[in-house]
């Protein structure tokens, strides 16, 4: 069975070789003209005004996390939609339960104030 | 009349312990009365059972058990609740009942800290030790054997002098290590028997046939040939019992513990619990592993002799009178062990008799030491002298106990020690000679102790003490009376034990015997006993 994985190994090797090869070619043949302006964080010319290491409001993280949770869970609707005809009523009820659980989660998050921005 | 008397004996103290919990802790008199009553009732039942045992029916087979009860317990592994009484356990059970009555009376004579706890633990211990003596099923036996440690642990850890913590943990860890080795042996035996016979059982009477391989075990890879599985299993049992007795390399827990424990615990701890190791040797190790026993008897008998002499020498070198008694106990337990490993009727019979005798003597000695300590405030031999004039009654009791302790003819331990010496001589004269040396040393330290404490002009500490109270005398009187009575009439003990001892001896030599009961403890040398 191990031999079944041979294509994957080959694929992996090709990927590594290609990536490394491109890098190597660029560093060998590419022209090199370093200057101070090129080392700036924004090459388009905007001058950074303060350190990038400052704290962000925790609300960003909470919002991002909540977005990911609800986003990922709603992806589940897609495979369901493809076979909803086969599943008939049963499928609709099942998805109803699922959506209800998500909804309860949303209510909980809302009531706890996680969606408030201040 | 189908009362399961042995179960009653087991449950009575347990029920009393439970009953104690509903009595308020301030009702001191009630607590004491209940404890004494329960132990006394158990003793009455046990003594009646022992007295009427001869006439009661007994089980067939290589070991005759009276009052047997067999019930299913854990059918999946064939464990049963099988209890029974035979000649060997009967006397020790009688002793068991006695020492607990004594313990209960002693605790009721003084104000004990947390009395309810003490009484409850005492009663629990009695259930456990009685269980050890009555179990015929090995798993049940192990349950009681190990379970005994729980109340003992709390008793020893809670009561006694300030060194008790270390001493107790040492004792428990030693004992548990030995017991666990025994558990492996029990399991090996169980599976070997299961494979050989096709049925699972922990019952001693079923396991007697053995089943463990007698082929030497070879350690793989290194190719070292070791003992046979049977011998290994025997060593597991031997480790557990030798620690409990204790025999010399395993004895280090004993002096510290005896020194730190209070007298109400010591009467049953020294009087009985340490004897259970000896009893279990006779009951289980000898009967289950005849071949291994015969292989190792030389070593074990040698350890016993070392214990006798080492204990005696240590007793000689002590100043603390409690430690003297503790080491004398070690020496006497060596005697009992020696009797067992002679593997002949005289030796084993002597050992059984001596278990009972020594239980009585050591209880009396510890009570006397405690009285002396209470009155004078010291246990140092050098600070004690001249108590004879201040305490004439104690003098008399102490004298009898001393003489009994050194094996004076006419005292109870003479019969036992003589029988053991006889058996030891049959094993090999050298053992008897060395054990005899132990007797000589015992005379030395016991008489020196008695004379030193009792004679000579009083010291400052012993100047103003009064004699024992009548109640204390009433506690000591039956003990001293028994020492004299059993010394003059050693017959009763031997009569009860003889059949069982013969059966056990026969099993220890690898064959079952139901020979007729025409043997007395001091009778002629039995030909079956020759190695």
């Amino acid at each position, binding site marked *: 069975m191990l031999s079944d994985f041979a294509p994957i190994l080959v694929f992996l090797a090709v990927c590594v070789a290609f990536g490394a090869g491109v890098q190597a070619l660029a560093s060998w043949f590419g022209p090199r003209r370093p200057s101070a302006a090129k080392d700036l964080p924004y090459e388009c010319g905007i001058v950074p005004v303060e350190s990038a290491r400052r704290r962000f409001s925790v609300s960003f993280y909470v919002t991002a996390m909540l977005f990911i949770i609800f986003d990922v869970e709603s992806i589940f609707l897609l495979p369901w939609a493809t076979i909803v005809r086969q599943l008939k009523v049963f499928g609709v009820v099942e998805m109803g339960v699922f959506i209800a659980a998500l909804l309860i989660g949303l209510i909980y998050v809302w009531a706890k104030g996680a969606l408030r921005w201040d | 009349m189908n009362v399961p008397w042995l179960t009653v004996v087991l449950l009575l103290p347990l029920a009393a312990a439970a009953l104690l919990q509903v009595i308020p802790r301030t009702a001191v008199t009630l607590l004491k009365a209940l404890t004494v009553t329960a132990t006394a009732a158990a003793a009455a039942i046990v003594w009646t059972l022992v007295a009427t045992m001869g006439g009661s029916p007994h089980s067939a087979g290589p070991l005759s058990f009276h009052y047997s009860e067999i019930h299913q317990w854990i059918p999946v*592994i064939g464990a049963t609740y099988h209890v029974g009484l035979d000649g060997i356990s009967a006397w020790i059970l009688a002793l068991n009942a006695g020492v607990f009555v004594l313990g209960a009376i002693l605790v009721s004579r003084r104000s004990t800290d947390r009395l309810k706890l003490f009484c409850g633990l005492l009663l629990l211990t009695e259930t456990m030790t009685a269980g050890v003596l009555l179990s015929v099923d090995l798993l049940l036996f192990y349950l009681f054997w190990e*379970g005994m440690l729980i109340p003992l642990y709390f008793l020893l850890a809670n009561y006694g002098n300030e060194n008790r913590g270390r001493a107790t*943990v040492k004792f428990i860890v030693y004992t548990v290590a030995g017991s666990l080795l025994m558990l492996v042996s029990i399991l090996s035996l169980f599976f070997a028997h299961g494979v050989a016979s096709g049925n699972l059982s922990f019952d001693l009477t079923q396991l007697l046939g053995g089943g463990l391989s007698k082929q030497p075990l070879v350690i793989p890879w290194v190719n070292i040939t070791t003992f046979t599985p049977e011998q290994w299993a025997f060593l597991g049992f031997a480790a557990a019992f030798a620690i409990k007795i204790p025999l010399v390399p395993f004895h280090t827990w004993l002096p510290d513990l005896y020194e730190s424990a209070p007298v109400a615990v010591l009467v049953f701890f020294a009087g009985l619990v340490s004897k259970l190791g000896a009893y279990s040797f006779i009951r289980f190790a000898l009967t289950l592993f005849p071949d291994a026993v015969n292989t190792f008897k030389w070593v074990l008998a040698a350890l016993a002799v070392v214990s006798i002499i080492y204990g005696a020498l240590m007793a000689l070198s002590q100043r603390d009178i409690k430690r003297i008694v503790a080491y004398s106990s070690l020496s006497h337990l060596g005697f009992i062990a020696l009797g067992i490993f002679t593997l002949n009727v005289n030796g084993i019979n002597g050992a059984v008799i001596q278990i009972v005798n020594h239980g009585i003597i050591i209880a009396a000695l510890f009570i006397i030491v405690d009285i002396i300590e209470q009155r004078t405030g010291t246990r140092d031999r050098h600070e004690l002298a001249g108590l004879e004039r201040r305490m004439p009654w104690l003098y008399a009791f102490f004298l009898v106990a001393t003489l009994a302790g050194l094996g004076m003819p006419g005292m109870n331990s003479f019969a036992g020690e003589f029988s053991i010496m006889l058996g030891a001589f049959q094993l090999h004269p050298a053992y008897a000679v060395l054990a005899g040396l132990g007797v000589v040393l015992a005379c030395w330290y016991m008489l020196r102790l008695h004379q030193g404490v009792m004679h000579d002009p009083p010291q400052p500490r012993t100047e103003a003490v009064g004699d024992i109270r009548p109640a204390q005398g009433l506690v000591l009187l039956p003990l001293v009376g028994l020492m004299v009575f059993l010394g003059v009439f050693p017959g009763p003990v031997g009569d009860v034990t003889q059949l069982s001892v013969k059966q056990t001896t026969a099993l220890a030599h690898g064959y079952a015997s139901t020979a007729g009961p025409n043997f007395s403890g001091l009778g002629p040398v039995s030909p079956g006993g020759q190695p």
Partner: protein
Amino acid sequence: MTVLGVLPVLAPPPGIDILGLLPEVILAGGFIVLMMLDLVTAPAQRGWLAVVSVVAVAGAFGATVWCWFDAATPRTVYFGAFAYDRFGLFINAIILVSTALVLMITPQYLNRRGLHYGEYYALILGAATGMMLLAGAGSLMVIFLAIELLSIALYILSGFNRTEPRSQEAAMKYLLLGGFASGFLLFGMALIYGETGHTQLTLIAAAITNGGGTVDPLLMAGIALLFVGLAFKISAAPFHTWTPDVYQGAPTSVTTFMSVTTKVAAFAALIRVFSYTFGEPLIYDRWKIIVYFVAIASMVVGNVAALRQTSLKRVLGYSGIAQGGYILIGVVVLTPAATWGSLYYLASYAVANIGAFAVITVMANRGEDLDSYASLRGLAFRRPYVAAAMGLFLLSLGGFPPTAGFFAKFFVFAAAIGAHELPLALWGIGTSAVSVFYYLRVGLLMYTRPQPDEPSYNWSRTSLSGGGVLALTAAGTLVMGIFVTLVLNIAVSAQNGIVLHG
């Protein structure tokens, strides 16, 4: 229509059997209801949330009992994803009883600590749901999902005391190492799937049997990684490093819960996957070596490290590692007796360990837990019954008869000796003798009279529910140590009922 042809597995009803998941469904329902109730409950009334959660647990327990009789013939439900058998139900019962006991001691403890938030109960039920799913998991996917469900809930719970740095540290450590473990687990599953082409345990077993006498190294690597992932959850050495810190840092009621239930559930999965799916002699001979040494390492590391601790929670943490080692003996040995021995062990461990941690929880005062050795000193003089119960639990953990712990060890060692694994039993016995030291030292401390000048720990009063939990666990410890057959017969029946074929 071609798209639909790719997904025939999702075809509706025949393989779906909601009854097979009834206890889990009830508990999950309780979880959602509690989350909603928390929104409308005033802070002072949060004790009622505990009542509701106990009711949910009781309902799930009732369902479990009903299922027990219903599942006389074991089967799998949801297309083999979940096993509906007495093995899983036995584990369910242990988890539910443990959860109920934990819930009973919780409100008082949380109130004292000022941590009484409603999410606690929802999270406990969520974790318990995950554990029950793990106990019945019949597919690698369900195992993974169940482990994640229980782990995420426990990550939050172990950091529940947010203002306490120790609690934060515990949550962080648990999260990071738990994440690692999940990675191992998932990688192992991927390899196993790659080799056998299945995620269902029964089909994997069949594929291995039909594989013909060769063993692929990748399959073995997958099995090894799977074992590592589960070993993290049972905190077996050398994957145990998080255990003492997390046990110490987490709120004690949470430690009580996770020290028992996580282990029970993970062991259920371990036994189901290893003893029954990978039981094929060819691969058994290989993974046996790994588990063998992990078992010995756990027994040695747990017991030896516990000797040097001065914190009761850490001692119990290390003791838990050692106990895990003993139960692993039952996994290494492939006999039925080893399996029911392990089940008995899990039940007895649950009772005694919950009892021991409950003592710490119940006695905790406003400022700190009953955790240091100094705080134990003299407990027996002020709280004789609590101390006696604690003594009993410690004796059970140490394996003294007549307590449950003795028979637990006895059955496991017996199984090892019966299967000619004497060295394993000897390791167990040697380390048990060592363990007596620290169990007894704790016992001794409780019965040592404190010096008059010593500052005495301010033990809390035992509430009715707290005392009830201690009484129940103490009684259970004794009953399982004397009337062994009561639980043993159920455990044997659970072993007999394990699902082997789809």
